[in-house]
């Protein structure tokens, strides 16, 4: 019994080690300087400062500056492979080889840090539907939607390489992604964690939460501003 357990444990370790090794083999080292050259075609939409643009009524271009390099890299590979379908991005992503993808990702990741927001617990206002959805979710039986921040971190500022920041991203882009998950044109999320949640969000919740996160850095700055002025006096 003991021997079998030990043997299976060793097999387990070997298995994990090989998974790690293959992950390392895939990851190419990105070079931001080379990335800048390869990113020439990106500027038209994502802007020279990588801040993208919100285009009400049209296709919004996401902010890339400060996104985790590994996240950008995965998205570019997924556009190329069709795991994330987008008519605008597909041809541009297809122009890049694996090294260029790594380089462009490093370039945008290093361009400017994503805004750092407060991490301390703060109770959500039960009268504020958007704040409630972000912090507490919607656990009605037919919704079962976890709080956005449970995965995307306090104030939606992102967690690691897999849960991108939402706060400070453009309204139109956030709403479009939720729609894309719902209609199946985007299905490249780890374990389909986002697909199920997006499918259970209704139109009003999508509009509300996209606007909430897009404006959150400004909202928080405004909320904390008066007290800092008082401190100054």
């Amino acid at each position, binding site marked *: 019994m003991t021997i079998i357990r030990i043997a299976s444990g060793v097999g*387990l370790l070997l298995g994990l080690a090989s998974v790690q090794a293959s992950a390392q083999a895939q990851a190419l080292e990105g070079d931001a300087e080379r990335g800048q050259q390869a990113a020439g075609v990106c500027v038209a939409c994502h802007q020279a400062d990588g801040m993208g643009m919100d285009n009400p009524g049209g296709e919004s271009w996401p902010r890339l500056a400060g996104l985790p390099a590994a996240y950008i890299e995965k998205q570019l590979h997924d556009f190329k492979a069709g795991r994330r379908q987008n008519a605008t991005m597909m041809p541009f992503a297809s122009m890049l080889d694996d090294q260029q993808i790594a380089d462009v990702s490093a370039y945008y990741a290093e361009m400017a840090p994503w805004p750092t927001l407060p991490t301390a617990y703060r109770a959500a206002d039960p009268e504020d539907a958007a704040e409630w959805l972000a912090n507490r979710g919607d656990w009605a039986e037919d919704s079962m939607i976890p709080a956005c921040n449970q995965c995307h971190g306090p104030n939606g500022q992102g967690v690691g390489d897999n849960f991108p920041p939402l706060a400070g991203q453009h309204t139109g882009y956030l709403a479009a992604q939720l729609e894309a998950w719902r209609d199946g044109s985007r299905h490249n999320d780890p374990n389909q964690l986002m697909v199920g949640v997006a499918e259970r969000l209704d139109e009003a919740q999508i509009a509300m939460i996209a606007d909430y996160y897009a404006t959150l850095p400004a909202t928080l700055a405004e909320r904390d501003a008066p007290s800092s002025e008082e401190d100054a006096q």
Partner: protein
Amino acid sequence: MSLRRSQPLLAVTLVATLALSSAALAQDEGVERDYQIPLPEAPEGEVTFTPPHERDLPDNQYGDMVRKGRDLFVDTQSLRGEYVFNDQNCANCHLDAGRLANSAPMWASFGVYPAYRGKNDKVNTLAERIQGCFTYSMNGTPPPTGSEPLVAMQTYLHWMSTGAPINESLPGRGYPALEEAEQAPDRARGAEVYAAQCAVCHGDQGQGQKVGERQVFPPLWGDGAYNWGAGMHRVNTAANFIKANMPLGKPYSLSDQQAWDVAAFINSHERPQDPRRRTLDTLEETDATFHSHHGFYGDEIDGRRLGDHADFGENPRPLDG
């Protein structure tokens, strides 16, 4: 017959029907109720109880105490270093701040206490039950009876249970019990489930993930996790929780076998010592006295015996303390 008269009649009929049905129920359950026997697991059927909404909380001392309890429930880390000595929050295992059915909701627990518990062989009040969570799940020190944290949490639970029946097992209570696994829960299969489904949030070493100082995804083993005395270290409890609640946002997506296997994998890792080990001389004695259930405490895994250490994590009380 006038409308005026038919209403009381209707009420009488209703009362009579209710009395009849509860009498029938009592008959079905057997001759006489033994109040020491733990309540049965949650009955099948639709969840009928809905806790009140926070927007209806009053602006007075009661409402403030509820809010305080809610804050402690969601951000139990605010008691870190005082009553909490790991990285956990109550809301990690009781989703939606303790409100979610099949996620051991507080509204289904409140009316169960006081209750006899085999775990410590005595009648436990709700306060003692919460204190137990601090000792085990939070690897901590129980807030004293009557202290504000405990009063706040009791008030939060009391408010949440407004209108819930007392001393009844309600649908949605606890975690829904899985059938026995078809194949014995297997750590190696569990490791595969973990790598594919859990590691993206909880990390490949079960370490969880933080943003700054804030724990976003809780650790599942190691010093930051629940200790060897917590209910969640039992494979069946964890499997039940996982099936109904994990991965977050994908309830009931794993097969029963996957839930069993991954629970075995998670709970066959080292974690802070069982606090009751302090009261006994050896691991063997602790294992025999407190661990005759489905868990890995005292078992040899990969050449090491789980629980064979004096590591209480961050809890400062030593083995002989």
